[in-house]
């Protein structure tokens, strides 16, 4: 299912955080957004989720203007979003339960997805009893169990160590690529500040300008072959060349953001 930003502007009071952003994610496409820290990446995702409404312009989901929450999207939040009073399994079962599934059916679906993210034996653990990586996996299972046609992911792996991170990136790609969801492969909008991660995962990388009034300033199609291994693909010359091209654009924005931050 497609996701489109049509000249979306967002103001928090007087501050313009998003300034006329236009871009789209095609059905089944994996798009990453990179940008300097604090430029408004999470805000863009909140707009796509319908958690906040644009000040002007609109978000289109499958061609239809979005009003209210985006019911077609699953959202992997940047922060700790698990319910601390539910076990891993009950957290994953929450979505199906909210949708009216019986407890048994919800628990069975949850167990299946826990197994797919490698947590089969950890269903009884509470969030505080799990490592950061396990919590992220649980969040991933919690989102995927509902089989949303659109997947919004906000720096899901940035808090993980390098090994776990590459493991999970590969898992994500495998799950996405093998997707036999109701509506075929999911459209993914993936936020990261890590350029290597963006390139190794995506079909397309969008670079955001430094804030305020952030908007896409460049787009790069990543035509590296799939299936990919995120660790191996980083070693190929094609990857390095792509990284250099994108970094040339991103570097200026990062510097701008850094100077603005240092001046403030």
């Amino acid at each position, binding site marked *: 299912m497609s996701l489109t930003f049509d000249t979306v502007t967002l103001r928090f009071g007087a501050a313009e955080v998003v300034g006329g952003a236009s871009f789209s994610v095609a059905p089944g496409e994996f798009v990453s957004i990179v940008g300097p820290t604090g430029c408004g990446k999470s805000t863009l995702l909140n707009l796509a989720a319908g958690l906040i409404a644009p000040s002007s312009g609109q978000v289109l989901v499958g061609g239809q203007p979005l009003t209210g929450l985006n019911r077609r999207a699953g959202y992997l*939040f940047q922060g700790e979003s698990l319910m*601390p*009073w539910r076990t891993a399994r009950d957290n994953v079962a929450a979505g199906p339960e909210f949708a009216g599934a019986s407890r048994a059916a919800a628990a069975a679906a949850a167990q299946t997805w826990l197994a797919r993210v490698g947590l089969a034996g950890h269903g009884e653990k509470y969030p505080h009893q799990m490592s950061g990586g396990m919590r992220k996996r649980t969040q991933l299972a919690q989102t995927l169990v509902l089989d949303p046609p659109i997947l919004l992911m906000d720096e899901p792996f940035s808090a993980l160590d390098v090994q776990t991170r590459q493991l999970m990136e590969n898992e994500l790609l495998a799950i996405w690529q093998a997707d036999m969801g109701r509506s075929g492969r999911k459209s993914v909008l993936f936020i990261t500040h890590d350029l290597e991660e963006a390139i190794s995962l995506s079909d397309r990388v969008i670079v955001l300008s430094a804030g305020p009034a952030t908007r896409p300033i460049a787009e790069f199609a990543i035509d590296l072959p799939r299936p990919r291994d995120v660790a191996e693909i980083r070693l190929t010359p094609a990857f390095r060349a792509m990284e250099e091209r994108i970094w040339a654009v991103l570097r200026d924005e990062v510097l701008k953001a850094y100077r603005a931050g240092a001046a403030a």
Partner: protein
Amino acid sequence: MIGVWRTGLAVVLLGLWYAGTETAVLSPLFFGHPLKIFAVIGEWFASGDIWRHLAITITETLLAFASGTISGVVAGLWLGLSPRTQAVLDPFIKAANAMPRVILAPIFAMWFGLGIASKVALGFTLVFFIVFFNVLQGVREVPPVVLNAARMLGASPRQLVRQVYLPAALSWVFSSLHVSVGMAFVGAVVAEYLGSYAGVGYLILQAEGMFDVDTVFAGIIVLTGCALVLDGAVSLAETRLLVWQPRADAARES
């Protein structure tokens, strides 16, 4: 080792008390006599007289605790989720909470008579506000990201209340169980003491009327024991109810 010190300290204190009253350094008229006090307690339990009074005091405590907790949760959720109503009621709630509520006991006795109801009413006013403010706090402090995640998972407003706000608020209620159970007990005993015809507070009131200080002390000791038992029960309940919370001591160790 600590146990030895504790036992030693208890023996020394009791010994001093005993010696003081034996030698009349401490007047037995005001300080009672340890042996006589334990004789009174022994007689209470041997004859079984005490059970009826204890049962009444504990019933009052539990009823006050249950009614205060349930109303506190409902009111806290309601006001926590409608900031408008809360803004309107805020000064009234502050006033009601600031009032020294023990002073309501005579009024409750007039309204509800000298039986159980007036004791439950006083305990209720004490428990209600503790629970209410905890729930209010709990509702306010639900992390926005947890709330938004639940909404994105499809939770309806009703499901948000039951599955997110309520558990978040209950964790605050559970963590204040010691205080609220204690308050229910205090409310029951104080109300009994201020006017009743049964309960351990009543036994103390009666004994005091007859300058029977040994029985007064015996009553206090029974009440203390009862409070300790209640507190132990709360600790047991707590470990079961709060399994999902990281324990402060565990966090310190890791």
